[in-house]
């Protein structure tokens, strides 16, 4: 969850303006003309507006492909991350890239991307997409070309098709073919406009105003987070939850079997305890203690292991203290449940088994 929302939060926007009737730019595709940001900037309460482009790309570096979430922004404007851990932010308008440390790409690396080669000028830390892919930042123009610029052959084909259409229309027959070039090469699209508001502005009211006059959808950052959490992450969460439930059930059975076996091995000792007067609650307490010790050892070992290998997971593993406490409580509950079988067995032990039966 932390990872999935990190990208939304790092943008530092109060509002996200996206294509009407979409949940863009993360949950759904969204296309907005780049220059809309100028109109939005004029809306009362808007302090800053800046276009932004998002796309998932696969880098061809080394033997294994590397997926990154590419973010195109205007250098120095909203959307440019301030969290540069090494190197510098993007200052030139072309062919510079800022990439998250998780990608494992050092500063100065040349990365072929689309038709150009980019140079890694800076590194960020802890910025990943909802899929766990590291984020990479480029200039808006670079991102637009990567996302919207068609192949030369495609451009030629579209131009020929348009010219044919024009020739079929007598009134437009005199328009030269070169005049069509900007139409088929238009890359001035973005996926969203990020908006930062004046401190006094009400985000919901401003969002509604933008929607009313500009026919785009404006979402507050909490709304964007909710869309992302509900539509993109929820299923993954449910799946992980199901795995967790299965693992916990299996753990309970394993601990219960271990405790039961250990209790069987101690039948004579338990009988002796009963003979020397140990009350049932004391004997049950010993079994429970054994079960809890087993569970806590497992929890400790697991916590240590996860702390040591968390960085090697494909996705970032966020170790939140609250989650740890909840897990600890669940482990204690499991141990309690698992010890029931052992305690029942222990209480059923006949104390006479501690004595000889010779006479």
């Amino acid at each position, binding site marked *: 969850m932390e990872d999935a929302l990190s990208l939304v939060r790092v943008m530092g926007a109060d509002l996200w303006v996206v294509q009407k009737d979409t949940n863009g730019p993360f949950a759904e595709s969204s296309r907005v003309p780049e220059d809309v940001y100028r109109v939005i900037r004029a809306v009362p309460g808007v302090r800053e507006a800046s276009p932004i482009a998002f796309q998932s790309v696969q880098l061809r570096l080394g033997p294994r492909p590397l997926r990154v979430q590419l973010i195109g922004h205007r250098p120095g404007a909203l959307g440019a991350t301030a969290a540069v851990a090494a190197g510098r932010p993007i200052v030139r308008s072309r062919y510079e890239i800022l990439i998250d440390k998780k990608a494992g790409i050092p500063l100065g690396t040349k990365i072929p991307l689309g038709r150009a080669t980019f140079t890694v000028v800076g590194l960020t830390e802890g910025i990943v997409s909802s899929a766990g892919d590291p984020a990479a930042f480029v200039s808006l123009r670079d991102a637009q070309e990567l996302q919207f610029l068609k192949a030369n052959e495609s451009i030629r084909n579209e131009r020929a098709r348009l010219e044919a259409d024009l020739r079929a229309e007598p009134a437009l027959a005199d328009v030269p073919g070169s005049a069509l070039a900007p139409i088929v090469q238009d890359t001035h699209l973005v996926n969203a406009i990020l908006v930062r508001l004046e401190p006094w502005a009400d985000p919901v009211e401003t969002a509604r105003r933008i929607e009313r006059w500009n026919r785009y959808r404006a979402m507050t950052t909490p709304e964007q987070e909710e869309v992302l959490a509900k539509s993109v992450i929820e299923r993954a969460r449910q799946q992980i939850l199901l795995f967790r439930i299965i693992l916990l059930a299996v753990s309970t059975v394993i601990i219960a079997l271990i405790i039961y076996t250990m209790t069987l091995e101690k039948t004579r000792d338990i009988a002796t305890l009963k*003979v*020397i007067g140990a009350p049932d609650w004391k004997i049950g307490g010993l079994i429970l203690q054994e079960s809890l010790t087993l569970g806590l050892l497992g929890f400790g070992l697991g916590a240590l292991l996860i702390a040591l290998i968390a960085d090697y997971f494909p996705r970032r593993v966020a170790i939140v203290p609250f989650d740890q406490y909840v897990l600890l409580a669940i482990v204690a509950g499991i141990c309690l449940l698992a010890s029931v079988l052992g305690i029942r067995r222990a209480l059923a032990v006949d*104390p006479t088994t501690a*004595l000889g039966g*010779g*006479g």
Partner: protein
Amino acid sequence: MPAISVEQVTKVFGRGETEVVAVNEASLAVDGGELVALMGPSGSGKTTLLRAISLIDPPTRGRISIGGAPVCDGGRVLTDDRRLRREKMGIIFQSYNLIPFLTTVENVALVLTLNGISGRTALRRARELLERLDLGRRADIHPATLSGGEQQRVAVARAVVNEPAVILADEPTAALDTDRGKAVMELLRRLGQERRAAVIVVTHDHRMLEGFDRVYHMVDGRISEDDAGRGA
């Protein structure tokens, strides 16, 4: 008033045609500081009587009193049997039955902690007793590394550490050679007298009878006192 009195105790197993009378109207009374033996061949009912007296397997009929207070009457147990055993009884087993995952001193202290004495005090008292029994150097090791004689002396220490009114020993020397067996019996006699505890020892070994105040014989569940054993 005897430390323990057993009156007309009968223990019956099964019903109808399968009914077996393991102990038949057995009576005995033992004063504090007295050491008595319960002898008899295998299957005569010695251990069954011991189980009945300790309320581990209460009698079908009869009356048992500890310090004059009835604890079982007419087959009805009148008290919490576990509490009775941990507060008023010390029990010694044929095969020592020390808890293997506890150290020697922890085994002895266990009875005290079961009686609500704090861990530190219990360990101190247990250690003092072990030192008196020349087992001080063995206090912090686990029972598996002790010899049979040492293990049984630790078991005796465990049985007497809470100063019980009654000590019941079920063939405590069966797994020991004669010298070690006699040493254990001497220890029981000495500690029983010191602590004014009634000591009942089930044994079938005549060589161990030295120093016993009285000897009871059991045959087919019936008990009889052997006068010749008095003061033997």
